[in-house]
């Protein structure tokens, strides 16, 4: 191992970054310029744009999972909850914008009329304001994550116990949201949205606008996370993942760092949910079940845990596959997903983003094959170990 030339260790990381920036710029150009233009000219269908809007909001959810699991070693199974909360907060505004165009032609949401309400419950009133709803998209999940995280990290809850707790939190919340007397639509949640900021949601132009906003938010989130990674904070974050004890004995209050990441991740997931709701046209408690959190974990694993670019590719790729598979083989989708996860864990622990490197190592492109493989060995080993460990912990939490 000592034969590895240190210079060879600096070069790949900087060129890898250059490649990543290139990939991101290419994706951004296609997503933000090419697709919308083609859509305006009728080449790309409105359905496709809408579908991609959904993928991009899922990519935000994937980033939130990666920020916790990939970069900090915290496998949170509560990200679907934060995603849904964002969806609900924005959904409340969208419900108010229906006005009296609902089935019952009353100025309050249909489900409230159905429950016998004649007036709007007071906590609904401020949601007439878009700005208030957006503030809640950030504050509600942020605050919940802060309180939950404060208690969990103070008590030094770690590893699989943290996963189980976040899962329990999500489960409890979904039960709560299923109840009619929470006055948030119960079982059916929110749907039949009509307007956003005065624009008709059924217009292709509105959907295209939402899609572009989602793309821009995703790009900004990506840049923010890249920046976070480059700071000393990012160093501490990954140090916590690899050796929390050393971090504590080096004078860092690891709990505060984890709390910060947990809150930031909750907000990112929530913003994803807020963008998802008007594009998909529905938000209900089934969006906050643990399966959804687990699905996001699979996207991250498939894309490449801890790589930031990987989770975005994973979220888009797996959901694209899902859209196809649920139409072509509706009953086999879950088997597809499970199989995909197993294949990645066993044969591609670094995910999609590690494919080029794998190929290079396999075919010895750079003439430094031996050096490369020796250098990559410990990395791959730990990756396999963590992937297997994760698979095991998911297994236990799911059962």
């Amino acid at each position: 191992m000592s034969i590895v030339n240190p210079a060879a260790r600096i070069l790949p990381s900087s060129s890898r970054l250059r490649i990543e920036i290139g990939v991101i710029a290419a994706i951004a150009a296609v997503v933000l310029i090419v697709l919308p233009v083609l859509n305006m000219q009728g080449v790309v269908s409105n359905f496709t744009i809408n579908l991609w809007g959904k993928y991009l909001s899922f990519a935000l959810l994937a980033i939130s999972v990666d920020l916790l699991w990939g970069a900090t070693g915290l496998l949170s199974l509560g990200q679907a909850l934060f995603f849904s909360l964002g969806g609900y907060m924005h959904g409340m505004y969208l419900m108010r914008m229906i006005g009296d165009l609902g089935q019952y032609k009353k100025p309050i949401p249909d489900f409230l009329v159905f429950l016998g309400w004649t007036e709007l419950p007071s906590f609904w009133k401020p949601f007439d304001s878009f700005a208030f709803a957006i503030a809640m998209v950030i504050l509600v999940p942020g605050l919940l994550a802060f309180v939950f995280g404060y208690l969990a990290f103070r008590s030094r809850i770690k590893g699989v116990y943290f996963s189980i707790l976040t899962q329990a939190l999500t489960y409890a919340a979904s039960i709560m949201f299923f109840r009619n007397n929470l006055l948030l639509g119960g079982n059916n949640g929110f749907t039949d949205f009509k307007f956003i900021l005065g624009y008709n949601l059924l217009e292709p132009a509105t959907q295209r606008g939402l899609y572009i906003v989602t793309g821009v938010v995703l790009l900004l989130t990506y840049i923010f996370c890249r920046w976070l990674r480059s700071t000393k904070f990012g160093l501490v974050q990954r140090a916590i993942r690899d050796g929390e004890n050393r971090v504590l004995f080096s004078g860092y209050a690891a709990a505060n760092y984890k709390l910060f990441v947990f809150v930031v991740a909750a907000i990112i997931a929530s913003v994803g949910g807020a963008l998802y709701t008007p594009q998909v046209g529905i938000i209900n408690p089934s969006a906050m079940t643990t399966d959804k959190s687990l699905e996001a974990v699979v996207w991250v694993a498939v894309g490449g845990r801890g790589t930031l670019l990987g989770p975005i590719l994973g979220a888009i790729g797996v959901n694209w596959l899902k859209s196809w598979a649920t139409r072509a083989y509706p009953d086999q989708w879950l088997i597809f997903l499970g199989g995909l996860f197993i294949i990645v864990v066993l044969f591609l622990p670094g995910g999609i983003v590690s494919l080029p490197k794998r190929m290079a190592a396999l075919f010895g492109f750079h003439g430094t094959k031996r050096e490369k493989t020796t250098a990559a060995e410990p990395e791959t080993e730990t990756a396999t170990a963590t992937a297997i460990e994760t698979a095991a912990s998911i297994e236990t939490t799911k059962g």
Partner: protein
Amino acid sequence: MAHPILNVEEVTKTYDGFKAISTLNFYLYEGELRTVIGPNGAGKTTFFDLITGRAKPDQGNIKFGPSDAPSHDLTALNEYEINRLGIGRKFQTPSVYSEHTVWDNLVLSLAGSRGVFASLFHRLKSSDHDRLDELLNLIRLSDKRSWKAGQLAHGEKQWLEIGMLLASDPKVLLIDEPAAGMTDEETHRTGELLLSLAGKHSLIVIEHDMTFVKQIAQQNTITVLHQGTVLFEGRFDEVQENPTVRHVYLGRGKSK
């Protein structure tokens, strides 16, 4: 002698009925290099756990009282608070961030703010760069600064962790078996390094290798722990000649 920087008085720690530490009294003086020896299970690592806040004593006091700063009751503080007072610890098995480069390992250990928001906008000053270069030279890892710590040999990891400890410029260094896994030459160099640190820092070194103990103890005091309490304190020769010590420890053929 000088001012005691660490006062451990009447400390007892029990795990499931087993007395790991039993009415222990221990004083470390400023600038001293103290070697702690003792057979397996004597409570050496628990002793470090108690000082660094990883474990809390059932009874007794642990006070940190440097002459140039207010004194603190360590039993009321947790790991990172104790570290911030200037007590650094090197673990028995090298504990470095294996996915970080050698350089980043040291950056994380450098003295300075440990806050979340400060870390977001942290920049290395040119004096920090000089300090890091100096440390890299000292631990002989200058040409491996961009290696991942996980790729270093065992002995190099030990040195890196010592370097990380020094980067935070602590008043007291607690070092658990620094020579484990090192070649004889590396062990000797480690000994020289530790000796050079004494005076400016106060050190407690736990060690098994008697050649190494002899090298670093020289005119310094050795504490022999046995069944969680101090069996004997004295110079190397005195320890070697003491019949009780010979019986519980050296008598088992540990002396090289």
